Every structure is written in structure tokens, then in C-alpha cells.
């Protein structure tokens, strides 16, 4: 009976435990689709142990191969002083998220229900709220409405986190009003992307530092800029640089980056091309801090 659809233990408090009664049925189907078995031992008043076993599982030997796509990691970012309020009825979720956030130096307040969260908001205003949607008692949507409609809290960004992909038009509409949406299990990059939208932070300039040190290295090794390339840099790039030092018109930044890439490609100067494409990247993402820093590095090219 335990593994059948839509069956649930009778007599429990639906406020404390609620669900569709599908969890174990789905689990059993998934496990058998993967060729495994699921068994249970249970003792009243003590607890239940579910054992899932998969025989003859092949193990990949390249599990340590890193994703080629550069994704933001905690090491790329330093967060300023900030407090995040987490709302989730599942303790493990709270623990998992708060560990990640605390690791990033963010202060975390946890609450196990929407009601508790509202109490906390009476005396503490966080910089961001991440809330579960499906919770017993008041759900995430109701919580959202109350926070938004109260003057003291209406400006706090609220990100929803939920395990279910909701295809219901009504819930999708409600979710769209949130400042962000994190699908559980929450991916680190997605979490970071949400956080940097709303919390004070600065990027560790690892990439840029690496780039400039690369340029410095070629310097030392004595790979000089081709005289024709140098002429282009002096006659065309230099006047642009003079303008860009003062302010950064978008079109001029593009022009500058492209000129450096083209010149680098034409005269086989790879660091120059990389430098140019870095500038274009900062322009594309409007990373102005990086853009200004890169442009200011230009002189290290000519003063040699």
C-alpha cells in the first residue's frame, strides 16, 4: 500500500504534513525504471528506513572533468554586508542554503514557516528573502502578498524557490511577480546569479589579473609588438583610449575592442586580441568596473 499512488497515512495533522501521496509511488517507478529495487523497514514510533539498491552500476571515470563553460563560483565574488531571510518548512533545505550563504559571508536568518518569517520581519529587515512556495499553513504566495503590501517590507526583493515546475497559468503568473525563481535542487550558479542581482558585492578580478599577468609575461619574454601594429595602436587606438579614459561611450568602447582584436589577429599578437575581446565582453555585460579597469591597462602596451 505504501508504494501505491494517492495513498496516505490516515489521522495525521494535515497542517504538519501535506502532500499528494505520490512521492513513494514515483520513487518506486523511477527506481524500477533504472533496474533497482526499493525496500522499507519501519518501526512505529521509531522511524522508517528506505533502502534503494542498484545492481551493476557503471561508474564514469571522468567525473572530475570540469565543465568547460566558465560559471560563476563563490570564489569569483565577494559579498558585502548583507542579510538573507530563508523561509522553508523543510529543515534540510534551510541547512543546505544557509551553509552556502554563510560560506559566502552572508548573514542568514532562517524560518520554518511563513508565519515565523512575518514575525521576524517585524523587527528585522533583510536585504533579500528566499522563500519556498509549498508550505503547510501560509504558502509562499500568501507570504509574498503580505510582504509586498506592507510598507516597511515592500521594497525587499523576494526570490521564490520551489521543487515543482509549475505549469499552471495561475501559479506562473504569481511566480512572475517575484524578483527571481530558483528551481530546487538549487544550482550554485543560479543562486549566485540571484544573489548578485540584489546584494552588494564585488567581483574578484581573477580573470583580469590573469590576463594582465599574461601580457606582462610576454613582455618579459621579449615578444615585441610588430612595428605596423604599434603604428595602428599609436595612431588609431591611442586617440580612442584618450577619450575612453574620460568616459565610455558604448559605441567607442566597441570600436576600441574591435580595433585591438583585428590588430592582434592581423599581426599575430594573441594577448592583444584577448585583451580586445575582454573589453568587448565587459561591454556586452555592461560590467563597467571591469571595462574601465581594462581600458586603463592600455598604456602598459605602449609604454615599453
Amino acid at each position: 500500500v505504501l508504494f501505491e499512488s494517492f495513498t496516505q497515512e490516515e489521522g495525521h495533522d494535515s497542517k504538519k504534513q501535506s502532500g499528494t501521496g505520490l512521492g513513494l509511488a514515483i520513487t518506486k517507478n523511477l527506481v524500477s525504471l533504472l533496474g533497482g529495487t526499493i525496500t522499507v523497514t519501519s518501526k512505529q514510533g521509531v522511524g522508517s528506513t528506505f533502502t534503494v539498491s542498484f545492481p551493476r552500476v557503471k561508474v564514469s571515470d571522468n567525473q572530475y572533468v570540469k565543465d568547460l563553460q566558465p560559471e560563476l563560483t563563490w570564489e569569483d565574488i565577494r559579498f558585502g554586508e548583507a542579510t538573507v531571510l530563508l523561509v522553508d518548512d523543510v529543515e534540510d533545505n534551510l541547512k543546505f542554503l544557509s551553509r552556502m550563504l554563510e560560506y559566502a559571508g552572508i548573514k542568514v536568518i532562517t524560518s520554518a514557516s511563513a508565519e515565523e518569517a512575518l514575525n521576524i520581519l517585524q523587527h528585522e529587515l533583510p536585504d533579500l528573502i528566499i522563500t519556498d512556495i509549498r508550505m503547510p499553513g501560509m504558502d509562499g504566495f500568501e507570504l509574498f502578498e503580505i510582504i509586498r503590501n506592507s510598507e516597511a517590507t515592500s521594497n525587499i526583493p523576494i526570490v521564490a524557490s520551489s521543487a515543482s515546475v509549475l505549469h499552471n497559468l495561475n501559479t506562473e503568473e504569481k511566480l512572475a511577480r517575484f524578483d527571481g525563481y530558483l528551481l530546487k535542487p538549487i544550482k550554485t550558479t543560479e543562486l549566485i546569479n540571484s544573489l548578485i542581482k540584489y546584494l552588494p558585492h564585488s567581483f574578484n578580478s581573477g580573470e583580469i589579473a590573469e590576463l594582465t599577468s599574461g601580457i606582462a609575461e610576454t613582455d618579459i619574454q621579449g615578444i615585441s609588438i610588430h612595428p605596423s601594429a604599434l603604428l595602428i595602436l599609436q595612431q588609431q587606438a591611442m586617440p580612442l583610449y584618450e577619450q575612453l579614459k574620460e568616459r565610455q561611450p558604448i559605441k567607442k568602447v566597441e570600436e576600441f575592442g574591435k580595433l585591438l582584436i583585428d590588430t592582434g589577429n592581423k599581426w599575430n599578437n594573441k594577448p592583444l586580441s584577448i585583451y580586445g575581446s575582454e573589453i568587448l565582453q565587459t561591454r556586452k555585460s555592461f560590467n563597467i568596473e571591469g571595462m574601465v579597469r581594462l581600458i586603463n591597462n592600455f598604456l602598459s602596451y605602449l609604454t615599453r
Partner: protein
Amino acid sequence: MPPDMKKNKILIVDDNMNNVQVLAGILENNGFDLEFALNGPDALQWLEDEHFDLVLLDIMMPVMDGFEVCRIIRDKEKTHEIPIIFLTAKTDRESLMRGFKCGGNDYLSKPYDQGELLARVNTHLELKQSRDQLKP
């Protein structure tokens, strides 16, 4: 947007580069041309040099605050009709009223809601166009 239609050009004025990044990203994705200035004097220089259809103006800035920038924009013949939307960290009534008094058309409170940002920007661009058409 059809390719032959002229893009509206917006000047973002904010000393916080992250705010500029967020606003610029949203606006560019929605077909606007833009430039940014990180302080008031730079913003005024931009407006002196080029035509803009709308200004998004932060209030709390060092050197020259948004109210001051707004007053100067309104005083100049060339720019006195340009729509100005203030960017405020809080919907603090007092500064809001100051913003309207010195010639601001509207305000947006941080954190920005993308829909609201675009709606307000578009409304003021349309209003400006209608006003221009009404002129003899």
C-alpha cells in the same frame, strides 16, 4: 522593432556601477540605445554633446546630486523638455516631492522591477512624442 525605426536613446546616470549594469542590461535587451554617466557633471556633458530621448537619474550621488542635475537640465533650452525619471532607493515621500518639484517626471524605486521600468520608460517616451506633435 522594425530595423528602419529609430531607436530611443536613454542616458543612465548612477554612481553605482552595478545599478547601471542592471538597468543597461534590461534596456538594451528591449531595444534601447544607451549611454551611461557615473556622476552629474558627466551626465550634463553628455546631454550637451548628444541628443537623448530620456534620462534615468539617480538621486544620491557624490559631487552633484540628482536634484541639482535635474534643475540644470530643466534650465537649459536644449534639454528642458527631456523626460527625467528619478531612481530612488526608497519611496521616501519627501525626496519624491523634491524630485517632482525640481522637474522630474516620474520615479522608479530600487530594486527595479523589469516590467515597471519598461512601462514607465515607454509611457514617458510616448508622452513626450505626443507633446511634440501637439506643438504648432
